[in-house]
């Protein structure tokens, strides 16, 4: 297998775009959040500054090898999701490395980063890391169920696990989008998406004051920089995944960005409106409404 260097370049370019987009999007979201709170808020480019500052920290500490590797795992997870996902429908070069696997690969690659992060944070030995991780994992188990069911529903509908195929099946107008053709699965997936984003009301994992931001309590400097980079990429990637699955994909960058921004705004919006759930409240919640919706969705197909 010869390496397609041009494709690699395009992929890296896409990664760069997504990174910037992710940072800006985060800034914008923060800004919008501030405006909702009648504040002016930070500049849109603030995430860049934070990133630079974190990479520019002079001293660092390390708790051990796994602590060191945690952010690496995390970022590989984030970048991996991006790499294995087709971005623009119909474009060979913007389909990234999606030839390596289908949506199942993407779903499971999410765990990669999570696990690495969990292990890295644990090596720090901070009890709050443990607590945060145990909460995060607990919640995650139930978030994934409706999401997976929704994915399966979509896959069954299009008779494929391939994202390209799924997007292809949604072409031809808004009424062909899966959110319209299979609204139950779509809604279930969108609800699960809330949990995946770990935004309020499902952000008890990081509960900033109770267990100072949970898992990454000990992370700082470059580590934190990596995590921030990852966040930018991962959130956008997940949004793109949702776009591909339920919102007809995108045929060009503008469409992609608009759609993914809209999708990403959904958890932000919910997070601004609802207060935080405890872990033992969120788990049954996910196993009730989204699960039922997704089961209906799967049998609708």
């Amino acid at each position: 297998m010869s390496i397609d260097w041009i494709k690699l370049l395009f992929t890296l370019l896409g990664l760069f775009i997504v990174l910037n987009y992710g940072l800006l999007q985060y800034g914008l979201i923060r800004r919008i959040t501030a405006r909702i709170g009648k504040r002016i808020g930070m500049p849109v480019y603030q995430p860049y500054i934070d990133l630079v500052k974190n990479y520019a920290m002079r001293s660092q500490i390390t708790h051990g090898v796994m602590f060191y590797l945690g952010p690496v795992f995390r970022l590989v997870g984030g970048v991996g999701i991006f790499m294995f996902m087709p971005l623009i429908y119909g474009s060979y070069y913007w389909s990234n490395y999606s030839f390596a696997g289908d949506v199942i690969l993407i779903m499971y690659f999410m765990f990669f980063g999570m696990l690495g992060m969990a292990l890295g944070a644990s090596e720090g030995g901070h009890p709050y890391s443990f607590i945060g991780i145990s909460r995060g994992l607990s919640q995650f188990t139930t978030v994934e169920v409706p999401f997976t069911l929704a994915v399966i529903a979509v896959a069954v509908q299009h008779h494929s696990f391939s994202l390209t195929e799924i997007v292809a099946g949604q072409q031809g107008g808004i009424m062909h989008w899966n959110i319209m053709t299979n609204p139950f699965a779509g809604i279930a997936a969108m609800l699960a998406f809330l949990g995946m984003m770990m935004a309020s009301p499902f952000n008890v994992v990081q509960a900033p004051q109770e267990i100072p931001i949970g898992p990454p309590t000990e992370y700082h400097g470059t580590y934190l920089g990596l995590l921030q980079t990852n966040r930018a990429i991962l959130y956008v990637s997940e949004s793109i995944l949702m776009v591909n699955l339920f919102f007809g994909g995108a045929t060009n960058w503008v469409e992609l960005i608009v759609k993914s921004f809209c999708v990403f705004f959904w958890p932000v919006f919910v997070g601004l409106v609802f207060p935080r759930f405890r872990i033992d409240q969120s788990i049954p919640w996910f196993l009730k409404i989204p699960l039922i919706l997704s089961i209906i969705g799967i049998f609708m197909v």
Partner: protein
Amino acid sequence: MEDKKTFIDPDLTKRTVIGPNGEDITVDPIQDYFCDALPKKHEPKRAKIFENFFNWARAESIWVLGFGTGCGSIELYPLLTPRFDAYRFGVQMRPTPRQANLMIISGYLSVKTLKRAIRSYEQMQNPKFVMALGSCTINGGMYFDSYNTINRLDKYMPVDVYVAGCMPRPEAILAGFEALKKRIKAGKAEGANLYAENFETYKANQKKIIRDWNMPDYNW
């Protein structure tokens, strides 16, 4: 002093435990649990342009450790409200010292709190800045003769900015931020390095007033 008794922390005394194979294992908590390295001075980047850029980034992204020491901490909360909105200036609150750059000593510092403040300060990473609020941190203020509060903060840690007042209003704190930013951008805010360079002095000062010094010399 006649009543200078050494405080013995039961958690930090040497102890012997029995290992899995029945062998005796002596544990010296200070040695075994804590890193005993001393802080090092971190030189700025040689290339001025990088250093300036980084200093700009540091100045524009000030992450404040959410640690209220005295009555001044009540003045910190308004900073986050729509009225003062410190976010505009790139100021954010962080719950963990690892990620924070700026420590705000918000008012009087009792000896007990000083110990915690030192620990938190040492756990912050270089570069790190200290902003001290109110007269209490400058000269003791109304607690100048208290048996239990310190009078001058910069005997114990390098302070970048003092914000005077009792207490300073949020506007004053915002002004303090601006002053700090200027210092940082000018490359003058090298408190961390200062602390490392004069570590013995600081430590001696700290230990003089904190009698139950039950921690390593430097808290990594």
